[in-house]
């Protein structure tokens, strides 16, 4: 536990080290370069935007629909225990991923952010623990779950998981 916390501190320090802006606040706090004042490329977590809408930056999953990425994503989804809370998309501890209701937004960028940053009501933050390309693979898999197809017969790799008996009767 202690080691873990220390590790996190280490990580934070490392993150700070690469952000010189944050460090010499005292010396140069009155004048900010224009580029550092407003971030427009950050992923919006809310759909509500004060004022008129800005032409937003579209965040697309570079691996969307790529079968290899989806299958890798599926493997990672299991290995990194996403399946432990979200199961095969129906949810459990975490919310379902296969329906159209998304608490924190369902576009690829939102899903990505959710994995990286975590969410306050239980979603852990995987920040700094999963490389970017794997994140997008997981996002690709999560996106593929959302197809408006019944789970019974989607094409593709994820059908290989458990199919239990439908029958309610026993002999």
């Amino acid at each position, binding site marked *: 536990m202690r*080691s873990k916390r220390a*590790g996190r501190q280490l990580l934070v320090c490392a993150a700070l080290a690469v952000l010189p802006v944050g460090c010499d606040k005292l010396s140069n706090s009155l004048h900010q370069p224009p580029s550092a004042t407003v971030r427009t490329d950050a992923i919006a977590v809310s759909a509500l935007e004060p004022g008129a809408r800005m032409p937003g930056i579209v965040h697309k999953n570079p691996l969307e629909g790529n079968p290899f990425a989806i299958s890798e994503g599926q493997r990672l989804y299991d290995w990194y225990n996403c399946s432990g809370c979200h199961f095969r998309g129906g949810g459990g501890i975490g919310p379902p991923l296969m329906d159209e209701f998304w608490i924190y937004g369902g576009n690829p960028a939102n899903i990505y952010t959710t994995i990286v940053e975590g969410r306050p009501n239980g979603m852990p933050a995987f920040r700094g623990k999963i490389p970017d390309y794997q994140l997008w693979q997981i996002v690709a898999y999560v996106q593929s779950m959302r197809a408006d197809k019944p789970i019974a017969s989607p094409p593709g790799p994820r059908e290989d998981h458990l199919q239990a008996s439908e029958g309610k009767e026993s002999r």
Partner: protein
Amino acid sequence: MSRRSGLPAAAAALLCAALSGCRGIQSSLDPAGREAAKISGLWWLFFYVCTAVFVLVLAFLFYGVFRRRSEDALGARERGKTYVAIGAGATAAILLLFLVVSVSAGREIAEPAGPDALKVQVIGHQWWWEVRYPASPANRTVVTANEIHVPVGRPVFLELLSGDVIHSFWAPNLHGKKDLIPGRINSHAFTAKKAGVFRGQCAEFCGLQHAHMAFTIFAETPERYSAWYEKQLAPAAEPSTPSQERGRQVFVSNSCVFCHAIQGTPAFGQVAPDLTHVGGRGTLAAGSVANNPGNLAGWIADPQSIKPGNHMPPMLMAPEDLLAVTDYLESLK
């Protein structure tokens, strides 16, 4: 007719290799186990008999083609039938011989390993080998990867399982191969007769890195084997230098623990090789590269360039962290 090539040429090359004493650590012709020796004996019998037959048949053929005297048509037909019958009979006789020696050799190598056999579980993964020594009580279970230590002279009973696709366990110096099939448990038994280090490799095509899925078998004296076993039971060595201390810190706080386990630390990942005693292993990445700090650091930083397509992601670490982790892992003898 060219005599430079063909089976005789291959056989000649083989003979040279065998006689010149250049021994192979992954060769079925340098048997170090009871089973491999039986099979190699079988091969030499096959080889000599088949070579003789081959030479004889071709001699007949060429003699027939090139001889001067023309055959008279009548009478020869009858004789011809006799020749063919004799030939078929000889073929059948040789086959019968082969069958008898083959089946008897098969029965011998399939003999049960007996109750005193060392039981080892080998689980194939894309693309590495998980090796478990089940024991009672359960906490004497040893888990390692890509290396199997066995005592010389004691039968080894392998339980072969697969975690994903079909693999095949093959250490030619000790025995032939046996597949690891998902949903099944296969068994395989061998007895090492000589101490030595032998290499084995996955022999069933299993995807991208089928070529880099090797393992090493250490056949050791019973004493050395026991010593090794006891050492494996111990949890990972405690860091003894600040660098190693830091390495452990980095390891457990990084995503290494998502997949790897180191007994004695909070790392319990179970989808990649157990690293409790990784420093004591000879190779990395299932026999892909030698285990030394340089290779290890390279493997951690960029595993995909060593073994493209394998499941280990590159680890983004500060250089000093990378060195520390390498230092720590290498200390886990």
